[in-house]
């Protein structure tokens, strides 16, 4: 009956969640530093629930085939539990996405607070921002003016006259030498990366959320009738 397809889907769900937790965009520090990494928690939960669904699917098939009423009852109860967890994972992932990337404020504030801060979190976040700004040639969250308009940890270490923004915001030649420090300092468009990183980070978090939430959602939509059918079977045993 429903078993074969069901198990396959759940294995795929498992894989997807592994993809999320592996964090190919490497934006985990942004979420981790704030103590709000629910997308990853969601992904871990969905790995767990995916696997549980798979095992329970096998268990349920055995129960139904052998016509053992107790096994089917146990199957239903456990399925309900796992279902609840998967729901929670979907909903928290999405809520968390809204919290982090519905507007750039949170990411901006975090960047200003932690960039260049001499703490473990600060170092981790600084590394991440440096890497994104360097690889993607972005600057700041919404643009270089983030660094200028707001007070920040970075500003306490580097006066504005010398470096209004981190030097990784400056455009560089292929040898990674800054094209012109003066040009970068006054913000001439040819010497500074004008684009903010928010799109990149938003895209990463969005695609994780998409994976965990919508795929989980699809699985749950599929599991619901499966369980209803199983309940019906249970009453006719």
């Amino acid at each position, binding site marked *: 009956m429903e078993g074969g397809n069901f198990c396959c889907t759940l294995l795929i769900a498992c894989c997807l969640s592994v993809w999320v937790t592996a964090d190919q965009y490497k934006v985990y520090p942004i979420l981790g530093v704030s103590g709000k990494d629910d997308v990853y928690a969601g992904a871990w939960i969905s790995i767990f629930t995916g696997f549980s669904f798979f095992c329970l699917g096998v268990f349920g098939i055995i129960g139904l085939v052998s016509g053992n*009423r107790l096994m089917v009852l146990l199957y*239903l*109860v456990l399925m*309900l539990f796992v*279902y*609840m967890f998967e*729901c929670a994972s*979907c*909903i928290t992932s*999405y*809520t968390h*996405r*809204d*919290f982090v990337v*519905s*507007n750039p*404020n*949170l990411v*901006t*504030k975090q960047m*200003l*607070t932690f960039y260049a801060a001499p703490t473990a979190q600060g170092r981790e976040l600084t590394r991440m921002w440096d890497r994104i700004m360097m690889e993607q040639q972005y600057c700041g969250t919404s643009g*270089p*003016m983030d660094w*200028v*308009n*707001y*007070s*920040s940890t970075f*500003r306490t270490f580097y*006066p*504005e*006259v*010398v470096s*209004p923004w981190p030097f990784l915001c400056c455009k560089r*030649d292929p040898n990674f030498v800054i*094209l*012109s420090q*003066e*040009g970068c300092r*006054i*913000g*001439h*468009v*040819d*010497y*500074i990366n*004008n684009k903010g990183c928010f799109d990149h980070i938003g895209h990463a978090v969005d695609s994780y959320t998409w994976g965990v*939430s*919508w795929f989980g*959602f699809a699985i*749950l*939509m599929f599991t*619901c009738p499966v*369980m*209803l059918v199983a*309940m*019906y079977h*249970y*009453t006719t045993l």
Partner: protein
Amino acid sequence: MQTHLGSQPTFWEPLALMCSLRPQIANTRFATNNPTLTTVALEKPFCVFDGSLSQGVSYVVYLYVKADAGNSSVTDNSSKPLDTTFQETNGGQLGPYKAATFGVPNCASPPKLSDVTDTQKVSDLLNQYLLRVGDDRSCLYDPNFQGACNPPLVQNTAYRFKYILVDKAAGVMKDQTLWSDQIKTNKMKQSSTIDTWPGRRSGGMIVVTSILSTLMFFLLLGFLASIFCVVNGSGEPETAMETRHESQITQQGVLSVQGSAETAN
């Protein structure tokens, strides 16, 4: 400033240059970060003093800076330029201070702004074209520093600027621009005041939450219903079936016992 000048009819030029020119802030499309918290980038006075230059005399241009409120005289009674410093005027609050001195910009061959993309020339170009007020962090603390100190300005303060042309040998002012319009340095917003509230929830979140809650509700309902069905329904028919089954067995047993008894008989 050059483009501005270029568009004017030539016969207006001397008059315009003499009377109405004032220091201009550098084009914000050219220098996007301007004014900043502590600096203001001004355009150098190209062609502004041309009417006052005479051959064979060497000139120098001074830049005076004052906070909006301070008094505005930059020369003493004998039209000698004041030699006030940043500290003496309390950063321009009490009166203008001399922030920079530089040669008269060359009107005949002004820098080509299109050269800015050339990384070899950009540094020179910016030096020729722009004057960054508030550029020097160290001069205030350097006891050996000579000349006009140009330390960082104060944030969120309105400043005015004035260029004057000085005859180097005589040491007297030959010409001056008007005081510039107010140019206010930026105000720094505290990053702790950024509001991180996400605002409205996205449609996706609402869809996921509402549909999943509904599904969960139906599943629980279904589960309870099936339990109820089984407990309630199994009471009579199933026990009846079982008893019937049992009775059949007992009957069979009885029959077989009877049968065996018969055969025995």
